[in-house]
């Protein structure tokens, strides 16, 4: 079993998809789900392999580690790949068939996202990041929102150029691009040049990860693109970029300066995102700002040194990856202004789904959202560093604000004065239903999930495992 298939299969499928569609439309519509399903099976198989035999490293072209490109396959990376593939597969349900270009881009964004988390080479990460970025500009424009997508592209292209500049700086001072090889000389990267490079890389990856100063595209794109694309970008793709930042922090920048930089950006993201969500007047916009806030929480968690932070970050990210896409898919039926939601409670199923998701996002026990936030508080308290104690206040304030704006939405929903809006068809709710089912399954298995997360995080936080495969 070779993890390269996780990247190659979707790319090959995307290359051939237009040709197959021209020959036979019926076969063409099944290629996308088939390849995603195959990738999912592969990923689960690899998970078992790694649990049995330890982490794998895959050499491209058979050239040994620092010279050639290396894929590093551990549980953390696989977890995010599974999350992305599974999420995309669920979002594929109920999708109208026959949009060849959109399906091609969806396959390619999965390939790019998987490569991004698996790759152990800085420039390779840049290339996969560009695949993800260009595909998301295209997808953001797929429903005719060209202007929003263009503004997204300009910000993203600026970020990518700065990311490349940061990678160039790292190559200039170390002469290598391999993450494990870089991790053997951490002291070189902690000078001025190294930290400048980190800041530039953070700006670059931050565009996709919705970090504080470069997230102005979020509300525009998520309100104008289709619900499915907003769900994909906000719920799944953004975490891939955050995982790369985590890898860099663990392997290369295990210093307080880098941790505090990410912490600051995360705290600012949470505060600005949640405050803006309270003022927003449009349902999609509320979700967009709340996603900025939630990703800020993940960034805070990743900035906590040691495995405790990584566990909290993974838990928050996984939870958000279930809840936010489901919420976005609900808005497909009743998007628009908040005031249009009046009477939405007529549809019982939708109301229950929305309530469950909102409560979990706020963090009401026993829903998984509570445990994720609890892990974050636990991790922050355990550090004994003053800056992280402050995080507790931030998280509590964020929770209060989240409660306020979700309860405001619920109040509007139960307001039956104006004629109630049309209830969404059952078919439109399928993806949201699947996500909620997954959420409930995770509630029932909290114990096992917690244990396996702990194993994943401890091995991810240990950089000696990562450096083991170097032949030097």
């Amino acid at each position, binding site marked *: 079993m070779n993890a390269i298939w996780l990247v190659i299969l979707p*790319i090959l499928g995307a290359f051939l998809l237009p040709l197959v569609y021209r020959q036979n439309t019926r076969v063409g519509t099944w290629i996308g789900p088939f390849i995603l399903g195959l990738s999912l099976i592969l990923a689960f198989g690899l998970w078992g392999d790694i649990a049995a035999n330890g982490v794998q490293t895959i050499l491209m072209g058979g050239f040994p580690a620092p010279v050639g490109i290396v894929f590093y396959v551990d549980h953390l990376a696989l977890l995010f790949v599974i999350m992305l593939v599974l999420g995309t597969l669920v979002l594929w349900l109920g999708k109208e068939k026959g949009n060849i270009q959109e399906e091609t*881009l969806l396959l*390619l964004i999965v390939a790019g996202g998987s490569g991004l988390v698996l790759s152990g080479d800085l420039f390779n990460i840049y*290339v996969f990041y*560009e695949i993800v970025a260009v595909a998301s500009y295209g997808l953001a424009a797929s429903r005719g929102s060209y202007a929003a997508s263009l503004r997204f592209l300009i910000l993203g292209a600026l970020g990518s150029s700065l990311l490349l500049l940061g990678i160039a700086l790292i190559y200039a001072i170390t002469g290598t691009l391999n993450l494990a090889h870089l991790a053997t000389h951490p002291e070189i990267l902690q000078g001025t*040049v190294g930290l400048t490079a980190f800041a530039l890389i953070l700006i670059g990856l931050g565009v996709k990860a919705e970090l504080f100063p470069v997230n102005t595209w979020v509300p525009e794109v998520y309100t104008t693109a289709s619900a499915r694309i907003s769900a994909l970008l906000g719920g799944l793709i953004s975490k891939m970029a955050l995982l790369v930042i985590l890898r860099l922090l663990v392997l290369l920048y295990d210093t307080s300066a880098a941790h505090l930089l990410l912490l600051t950006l995360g705290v600012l993201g949470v505060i600005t995102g949640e405050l803006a969500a309270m003022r927003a007047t449009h349902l999609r916009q509320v979700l967009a700002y709340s996603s900025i806030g939630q990703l800020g929480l993940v960034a805070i968690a990743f900035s906590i040194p040691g495995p405790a932070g990584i566990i909290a970050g993974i838990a928050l990210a996984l939870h958000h990856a279930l809840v936010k896409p489901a919420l976005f898919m609900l808005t497909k039926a009743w998007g628009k202004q908040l005031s249009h939601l009046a009477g939405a409670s007529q549809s019982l199923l939708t109301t229950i789904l929305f309530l469950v998701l909102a409560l979990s996002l706020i963090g009401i026990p026993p829903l998984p959202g509570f445990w994720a936030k609890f892990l974050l508080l636990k991790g922050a308290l355990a550090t004994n560093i003053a800056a992280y104690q402050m995080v507790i206040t931030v998280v509590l304030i964020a929770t209060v604000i989240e409660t306020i704006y979700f309860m405001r939405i619920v109040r509007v929903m139960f307001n039956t004065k104006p004629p109630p809006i049309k209830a969404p068809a059952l078919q439109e709710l399928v993806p949201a239903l699947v996500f909620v089912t997954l959420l409930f399954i995770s509630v029932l298995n909290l114990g096992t999930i917690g244990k396996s997360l702990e194993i994943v995080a401890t091995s991810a936080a240990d950089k000696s495992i990562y450096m083991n495969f170097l032949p030097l």
Partner: protein
Amino acid sequence: MTLLSGLIFTIGLGLLLIVVIKSLIFEQVLTGGIGSIILEQAPNDVGTANIVSSVLLAYRGLDTLGELTVLFVAATAVGLVLGQPRPDAPRDPDAGFILRSAADLLFPFMIILGAYIILHGHLTPGGGFQGGAILAAAFFIPILASPSSPLNHKVSSLVEGLAGSAFILIGLLALFDKGYFLAPLLGTGEVGELFSAGSLPLLYLAVGLKVGAELAGLLARLHETEV
């Protein structure tokens, strides 16, 4: 307001970069690195005279595949954004007779030049990207000269799909044969000969065809859009 904050951002970045460049020049940092290893090993490992192409296709072949994918993503997204032009859409007027015949005359020469650059990519400067750009130009100039005979997008998308798949299939063959994706195949041969460097010229051919078809398709699509 925007001007001021933009100016501050630019000046800040400038000062930072000046400091960085100063330390790059004056503090000689870690030398060696992977570049010198590759310079030593490449002739034996891969067997190209042009070492940049052995980095592109052998040591960092996955980057090249990624780059082809980015081009493909962009072409697909451009197709998604621009959509199909109406067949009865107004077109630009034809250029004059002289331009048209010049374009027709130029066509075979540019094809030959592009093919030459692609096939000698492992020996001399140039290769799939440069040759592909020339191939794209060869197909695009006639369109500029006579817009009434547009590019056949079916053929160009067929070429880009097959060339991209060919690149991956060569990589997969290596995976089954040697156990590593995109490992060099077919031996290295004599450095400097046309038939050397194993599967590299084949990979370059796939890259050239794909880049050519992709860029030609992009240019033609942009050209065809209605005002």
